[in-house]
């Protein structure tokens, strides 16, 4: 009886094994296209980041394919939705690498999701370029201090972002007492808060509180009440738009009228929907770009995007677009579309004419770029300042 079960199970599994092996087989190599994977947050907590990013990516890909492609081949984007979930992102990465055999992966939009598969990419030697993951740990392993060989990003990193906002609050808004409210389940938020706090204190400011919330929270009144009692002059909320929208709305309802601010995680049309335009007045963010920048490249991009999608491109769309440009530039210089050569070419990226900036990759695999500071007025982003890298 005991053996019966074992044999039965073994036989069953063996037959499934054969069934599977024959059914799956290996995908036929299509040599006419360059397969690039996209591991994006198309649903879930930060869905608009991924959706915008994808729009930007596809706009660039279509342009390039219409102009003849790269190295005589068209680019094919193999996209999967990682559902804004870490485990799913890791699973998608594995699938892209082993099943779809992509030569490079674009993704993800958030640091948390990207971090979940950096090891998988490194082990399999496939380059990953993130358009907007800003946490430094994505490209530099915090345990060893070494740069991750195959991981790159075409955006700035949080130390820069946090410091820029700290300086803005101190020097432009001239405020000295700040309360911080961060999402401690997101590496992006924790990192950004940390860098802001460091820079703010170094500049002579005072941090009155450093509070936490989670991505699942909907009701922030309790912690906001606590913060309100400390009478801060500014509240820094370096989180993602869904919670931030609620936080700003509830803060205003509680009678907290001081200026508030955050980072690029705020940038989503949903933010205005959730918080309401009135609540967002007197808030400021650091961001990758603004569609209002007078630069002709920006305006050209805005026009093309509007034609194709019927809406204004936000920062995520712009960085998505730029990432493709940088990747294609690398492929061209590499001369062949293999993961190893692409990686090497990426390392020496210099002055790729992107929409958000001229993109150059430094020794830490990060892009050397400036940022913009925007203010929300009546639900629209107003361009305040540009900060050089």
């Amino acid at each position, binding site marked *: 009886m005991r053996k019966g079960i074992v044999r039965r199970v073994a036989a069953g599994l063996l037959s499934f094994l054969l069934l599977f092996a024959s059914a799956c087989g290996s995908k036929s190599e299509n040599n006419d296209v360059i397969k690039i994977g996209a591991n994006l947050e198309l649903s879930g907590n930060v869905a608009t980041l991924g959706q915008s990013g994808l729009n930007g990516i596809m706009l660039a890909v279509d342009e390039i394919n219409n102009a003849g492609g790269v190295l005589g081949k068209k680019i094919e984007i193999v996209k999967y939705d990682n559902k804004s979930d870490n485990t799913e992102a890791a699973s998608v990465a594995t699938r892209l690498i082993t099943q779809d055999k992509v030569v490079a992966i674009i993704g993800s939009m958030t640091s948390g999701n990207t971090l979940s598969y950096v090891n998988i990419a490194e082990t399999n030697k496939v380059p990953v370029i993130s358009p907007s993951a800003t946490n430094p740990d994505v490209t530099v392993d915090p345990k060893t201090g070494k740069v991750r060989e195959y991981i790159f990003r075409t955006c700035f990193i949080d130390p820069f972002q946090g410091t820029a906002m700290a300086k803005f609050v101190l020097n432009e808004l001239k405020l000295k007492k700040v309360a911080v409210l961060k999402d*401690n389940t997101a590496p992006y938020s924790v990192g950004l808060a940390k860098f802001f706090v460091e820079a703010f204190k170094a500049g002579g400011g005072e941090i009155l509180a450093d509070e936490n*919330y989670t991505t699942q929270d909907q009701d922030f*009144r309790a912690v906001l009440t606590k913060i309100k009692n400390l009478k801060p002059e500014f509240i820094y909320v370096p989180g993602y738009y869904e919670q931030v929208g609620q936080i700003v709305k509830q803060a205003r309802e509680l009678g907290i009228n001081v200026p508030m601010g955050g980072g690029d995680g705020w940038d989503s049309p949903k933010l205005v929907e959730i918080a*309401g335009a009135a609540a967002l007045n007197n808030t400021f963010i650091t961001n990758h770009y603004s569609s209002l920048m007078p630069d002709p490249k920006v305006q050209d991009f805005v026009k093309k995007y509007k034609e194709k999608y019927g809406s204004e491109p936000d920062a995520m769309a712009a960085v998505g677009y730029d990432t493709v440009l940088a990747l294609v530039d690398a492929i061209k210089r590499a001369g062949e579309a293999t993961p190893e050569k692409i990686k090497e070419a990426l390392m020496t990226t210099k002055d790729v004419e992107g929409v958000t900036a001229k993109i150059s990759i430094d020794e830490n695999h990060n892009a050397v770029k400036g940022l913009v500071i925007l203010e929300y007025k009546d639900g629209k982003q107003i361009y305040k300042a540009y900060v050089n890298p």
Partner: protein
Amino acid sequence: MNEFIQQLINGISVGSIYALIALGYTMVYGIIKLINFAHGDVYMLGAFAGLYATLVLKMSFVPALIFSMIVCAILGIIIERLAYRPLRNSPKIVILITAIGVSLFLEYTTMFFLGPQPRAFPEVFKHASYTLLGGKVTISNQEILIIAVTVILMILLQYIVHNTKIGKAMRAVSYDMQAARLMGINVDTTISITFALGSALAAAAGVLVGIYYNKVFPLMGIMFGLKAFVSAVLGGIGIIPGAMAGGFILGITESLVSGYGSSLYRDPVAFVILIIILLVKPSGLFGKNVREKV
């Protein structure tokens, strides 16, 4: 002190929502001894119904609320008839698993058709804040509305249960189904009405929450549903005033833990309370200990 009062107000508002949903749980459990896992999802569908009413049918607040309550009452009856009635004499475990199945079905079907993205309510209820105690404490009109609606509905429910014939039938069925049937009470109808009432209450909670947090999404029923369930158990499952009390206690405790401790413990608080109650006094605060008979 002001902070404390503010936290109390925060807690009471959230607690009212738990209470409203908990009423539905407690009524259904009282009558057929089923933890209706799908109740939280009826609440979610109530929010969506309200959204539909205001967005597409362009109704104002009160008609939208009533529309949503009616839709969910019907939904509750349908669920009961399709999924629970055939299993009325099955072992508990079977019906519990079915309830979980219904819950997931509702959640993911909604997600499939409407997408997982949260939606915002159009402004049906102009928001206004009032300050008390010399401007130190704020309460919004939405919070007042939620508390008021919850209290009114509870009083209404108590009246129905204790002062009407149908209420008497409900009490009879919950006490002894067979005997009630023998006395000529139409058990099936009574149960259906119970589900309808409970679902309508959940729908009301859904609409109120949708407006309050301005966020309606397919999985919104999970956390709130679980916490409402904890409230019901805390107060004594099957006991209506218990559900109210449980809801407020949970809401206030959560608020105080969040405000004075760390907001990271907000969700675990509910579960810890649940475990403590289940271990110390499973019949709840207002419940009576019933010995199991052989």
